[in-house]
């Protein structure tokens, strides 16, 4: 039972981490809260539904295209709608609300309100330390680990990645050092949407797909990011794993709604002790 809870928690946590990372990245660099983040997740899932579910393309090709689609949409949206509001937190945030609403209603018009399921590309289970692990969740977890390590190397070892870190630490000094912030904004927003799109694409065969599927995902990303500290990449990883394990335990013992309430309780408790989250810096 305990082994099962831990395994389920890690499997769920890895996907939460990917969602929270993209969200926290945009906030850390652009100071924009992206309420449309869940809609990029939805976009990824919708693309997989069409390419893999309807047209029958190979699953991983569909996943890759889904990620790229979300990323390209993100770059265009960032340039036109978000860039003009980038330093203003509140208007920027409400703008992402507008974008989210528009994307959601777009999906509603294209696909209708019904939730759909697509066939699972992998089936069956295997055993790990006394826990039953479905193969489809395993593929998601492996893909998530791969994405996380690529993302980490990108931030750590490429010039663009280093520049992104510099901008998130101190925008002005970074621009004095010759870092073009507009390019960094485009890259980080695009990358954030890429992560969200990939997460949605990977989860598409596991949960029902519909225009509103992004809502619950984004609530969880918020909870994780508040827990870990807004704008903190290690915080998002730590927060994602904590929430994954906590939800897995409560969901097994009680039910999924209680799990979300419990994770919210954890966050409230942390806020009493550390209002900026586990690894957050003081903002404002």
């Amino acid at each position, binding site marked *: 039972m305990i082994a099962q809870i831990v395994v389920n928690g890690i499997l769920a946590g890895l996907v939460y981490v990917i969602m929270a990372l993209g969200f926290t990245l945009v906030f850390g660099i652009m100071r924009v*809260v992206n309420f449309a983040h869940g809609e990029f997740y939805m976009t990824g899932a919708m693309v997989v539904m069409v390419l893999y579910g309807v047209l029958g393309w190979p699953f991983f090709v569909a996943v890759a295209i889904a990620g790229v689609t979300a990323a390209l949409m993100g770059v265009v949206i960032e340039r036109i709608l978000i860039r003009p509001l980038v330093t203003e937190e509140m208007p920027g945030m409400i703008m992402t609300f507008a974008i989210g609403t528009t994307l959601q209603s777009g999906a509603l018009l294209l696909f209708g309100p019904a939730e759909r399921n697509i066939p699972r590309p992998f089936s069956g289970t295997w055993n790990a330390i006394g826990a039953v692990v479905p193969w489809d969740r395993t593929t998601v977890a492996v893909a998530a680990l791969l994405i996380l390590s690529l993302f980490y190397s990108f931030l750590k070892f490429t010039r663009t990645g280093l520049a992104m870190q510099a901008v998130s630490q101190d925008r002005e000094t970074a621009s004095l050092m010759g870092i073009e912030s507009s390019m960094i904004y485009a890259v980080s927003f695009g990358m954030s949407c890429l992560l969200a799109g990939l997460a949605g694409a990977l989860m598409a065969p596991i949960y029902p797909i519909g225009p509103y599927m992004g809502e619950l995902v984004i609530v969880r990303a*918020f909870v994780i990011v508040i827990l870990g500290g807004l704008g903190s990449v290690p915080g998002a990883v730590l927060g994602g794993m904590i929430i994954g394990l906590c939800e897995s335990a409560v969901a097994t013992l009680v039910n999924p709604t209680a799990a979300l309430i419990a994770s919210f309780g954890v966050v409230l408790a942390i806020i009493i002790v550390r209002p900026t*989250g586990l690894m957050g810096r003081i903002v404002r």
Partner: protein
Amino acid sequence: MKPVYPVIAVVVISGIPWLLGDRYSFHIATMATIMIPMATSMNLMVKIGQLSLAHVAFMGMGAYCSALLTMRVGVPPFLSLLSGGIFAAAVAALFAPIFLRIKGTYFVLLTFAFGEIINLIMQDWISLTNGNSGLFGIPKFSILGLRLTATQHYYAMGMIWTAMSFGVLWAIEKSDIGVIFQSLNENEMVTRSLGGNAMAWRIAAFVLSALIAGISGGFYAFYIGLLTPDTFGLRAIVDLLVINTIGGVSTVIGPLLGAILIVPLPELLRDAREYQLLIYGVCLGVFLMFFRQGLVALLRIEGREKRP
């Protein structure tokens, strides 16, 4: 423009349903009298610099609480309406000391998550709320033996409620308390150094806005007679944001104008219901790009007269 003119204009506009005389325009007008207190009380939080997205959750709590009190316990509607508001305010007061410790973006995200979780509870606590199938059979509102049956009656009651809540919020904006609230947003350190208890004022604003939201929710419950969790979800938050953004947040008159403009929109879009959400999103975007300060700035309405 003096702030009195738009208020007079609103009073004139409120007579339109009698001019048209059909039931549907009374319905739209009644919905406006529910949304105006919601939007203006949300504006109170925006003005102290803490945008609360839990606002519709408080409306939902008030709605379910007053409906259930009348249906299951048999409390007279007027008392359950008040109790609904007090219940929402009490929950707000319970969480306020934790929520209001944090500011800016964190606060917005936290209240959003709180609202969504309250919504999940409404969906899942089926024995209490009947979940997504909806709580139906809520009796009509009655007070002192008067039973409100027609839409016109509810519109009249809604106008009284709107006038009351707007009067309170406008009076606060004009008074010294308004100055304190403004200072909480602009320079909290100064307020605190002058001996103002910033936290207490913040909690007061949060609780008052929840009280108004709760009573509006109760009114909604008795008027519509059917409650679904969906009513108090993301759509309603977007509605309130659109109303506040389009009206302008600098004064309480902004959301008043915004609500009057936005609430009748479904009537104009009756043939294109699916496009409604799309149009909301696009409107919101356009206003943010080009008219950031909203209608109040376009019409040059000042909330507080500048004193010499």
